[in-house]
C-alpha cells in the first residue's frame, strides 16, 4: 500500500475543504500550459522500451508506471503530461510493430477525451455538479495498484513446492484400513428367509415355530459345547441353565435326542436316572 493511499482516506474524512484536490485542479491543467512545453525528459530508447513493455500487464499498469516514475500523486493525476507520455509509448510500440493490444488504444482514447474535457472552460454555474473527468480513471488506477501490490504480496507468501514442503511419515505396516460393514436389518433377514422358503417348496415340510427354533438353537449350542470338550464327555446338566427351568430341560433333552438321531453326538447313561453324558461321535473332532 502506497503512502498516498494511506493518507488519502484520513484527509478526506477529516477535511471538509479538501484542499489538495481543489488546489491542483485548476492549477495544473487549466492554466498550466507551460508544462506542455517542457522538454521531454522521459525518453526511453526503443530497445529498452521493448523490454519494459513486455513487463506491463496492460494500459493501467503502464499508466501506473509513468505516474510512479514521475513521482506524481495519483489523486492529482496530471492528465496532460501522462497522456503525452502514454501516447509516446504507444507510438513507439507501433513503430516497433509490437503487437498492440486493443486495450492500449482504448486507454489512449480515454486519455484524449479526459484531456479535451479538462481543457474546456467550465461554466461557473455548473461547478458543483460537474464530475472531475479524471475521477473514474483515478479510481481505476488506485484499484489496480492495490491489486498489483496484492499479487506481489501473494507471490511473497511462503508456499508449498517452493518455500515449504509437506512432511509426512508412512503408516506402520500394521496399519490396515478399517472396513465398514454393511448394515443388515431384521426385516431384511426375515424377508430373505421368506423369499428363500417361497422358492424352496421341497424344503417346506413344516412351519417355523418358536419351539422348533429353540430346539435348533440348543442343538447348535450343545454341538459347540461338546466339540469344545475335545472328545470328553459332557454332563447333561451342563447343557442348560437351571434358571431356564423345566422348559430349558425339555428343550435340551429334545435337542440331545435330535442330535443323537442325526448321529452328531453319542449319549451314555450309566444307569437309569443317572446323569446323561454326551460327547461328539468322533474322538478326533477338529474344530471348536
Amino acid at each position, binding site marked *: 500500500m502506497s503512502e498516498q493511499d494511506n493518507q488519502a482516506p484520513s484527509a478526506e474524512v477529516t477535511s471538509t475543504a479538501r484542499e489538495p484536490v481543489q488546489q491542483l485542479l485548476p492549477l495544473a491543467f487549466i492554466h498550466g500550459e507551460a508544462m506542455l512545453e517542457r522538454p521531454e525528459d522521459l525518453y526511453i530508447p526503443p530497445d529498452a522500451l521493448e523490454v519494459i513493455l513486455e513487463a506491463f500487464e496492460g494500459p493501467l499498469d503502464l499508466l501506473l508506471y509513468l505516474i510512479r516514475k514521475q513521482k506524481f500523486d495519483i489523486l492529482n493525476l496530471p492528465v496532460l503530461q501522462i497522456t503525452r507520455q502514454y501516447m509516446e509509448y504507444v507510438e513507439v510500440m507501433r513503430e516497433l510493430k509490437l503487437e498492440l493490444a486493443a486495450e492500449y488504444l482504448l486507454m489512449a482514447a480515454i486519455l484524449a477525451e479526459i484531456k479535451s474535457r479538462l481543457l474546456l472552460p467550465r461554466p461557473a454555474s455548473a461547478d458543483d455538479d460537474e464530475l472531475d473527468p479524471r475521477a473514474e480513471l483515478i479510481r481505476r488506477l488506485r484499484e489496480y495498484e492495490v491489486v498489483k501490490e496484492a499479487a506481489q504480496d501473494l507471490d511473497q507468501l511462503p508456499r508449498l513446492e517452493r518455500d515449504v*514442503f*509437506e*512432511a*509426512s*511419515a*508412512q*503408516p*506402520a505396516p*500394521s*496399519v*490396515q*484400513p*478399517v*472396513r*465398514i*460393514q*454393511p448394515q*443388515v*436389518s*431384521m*426385516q*431384511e*433377514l*426375515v*424377508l*430373505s*428367509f*421368506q*423369499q*428363500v*422358503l417361497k*422358492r*424352496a417348496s*421341497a*424344503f417346506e415340510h413344516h*412351519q*417355523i*415355530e*418358536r419351539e422348533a*427354533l*429353540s430346539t*435348533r*438353537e440348543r*442343538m*447348535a*449350542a450343545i*454341538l*459347540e459345547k*461338546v*466339540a469344545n470338550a475335545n472328545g470328553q464327555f459332557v454332563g447333561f446338566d451342563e447343557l442348560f441353565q437351571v434358571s431356564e427351568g423345566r422348559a430349558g430341560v425339555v428343550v435340551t433333552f429334545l435337542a440331545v435326542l435330535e442330535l443323537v438321531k*442325526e*448321529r*452328531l453326538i453319542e449319549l451314555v447313561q450309566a444307569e437309569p436316572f443317572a446323569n446323561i453324558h454326551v460327547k*461328539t*461321535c*468322533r474322538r478326533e*473332532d*477338529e*474344530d471348536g
Partner: protein
Amino acid sequence: MAKLAKAQLKQLVEAAIFVAEAPISKVQLQETVLDGLNVSQKALNDVLEELRLDYQPRGIQLVEVASGYRFQSMDSLSPWLSKMWQEQAPRYSRAMLETLALIAYRQPITRGEIEDVRGVAVSSHIMKTLTERGWIKVVGHKEVPGRPGLYATTRAFLDYFSLTSISQLPSIDAFAQLASEPTGDEPLRVLANDAEEVAEPLTQDQEHLH
C-alpha cells in the same frame, strides 16, 4: 557452500527424510540436499543416529528400510491409526442374506443343506464373509460322507440384532402378514411402507446378480 553447523545439518537431514516421497538413502542425501556442503560420512551417520534416538519416544520413528531412511508411525498406534482409512464394504447380496437367514432359522445347518434349499451353490466367499463378520461359525460336523461343517449363528449375531436368543427371531408368518397387509388404515400403511423400503435393496441386488 559454507560448512553447516551440526544443528542445521540435523534439521536439514530430518526435513529431507520427511519431505522425500520415498525412503531416502545416505547416498541420495549426499547427492541432493547435502550436495556441496561437504558433510562427512561419519557426521551424517551421527546425525541419523541422533535423530533415531530423538524420535524414539515420539509417535513416529526413524527406521532404515532397504532403500533408505524413512519415518513411520509407531507400531503400537496402528489400531487407532487404522481408523483413518475406512472403506465401505459393499451391501450384502441377496444370496448372502438368504444364506444368513437360513443359518439363523435352521441352525445347525450344512452348506449343502443351504444349497439344497436355495437351489444354487453357496459361494465360499459368502461363508467367509459371514464368518469374518463373526456372525456364523462351525459348531460341529455332520456324520455324513465328507463330514461337512454345521453352521450356527453366534452371540455376536444375536447382539447385532439385539436378540437374547434365536427364539426371538420373528416368526415368518407374522412378518409375512405384516409386509403384505393391504394398506387399509393409517398405522398399518406406515409399516407396509417400511417393509417396502427394506425390500427395495433386495430387488436391486437381484438385478445386480442376474
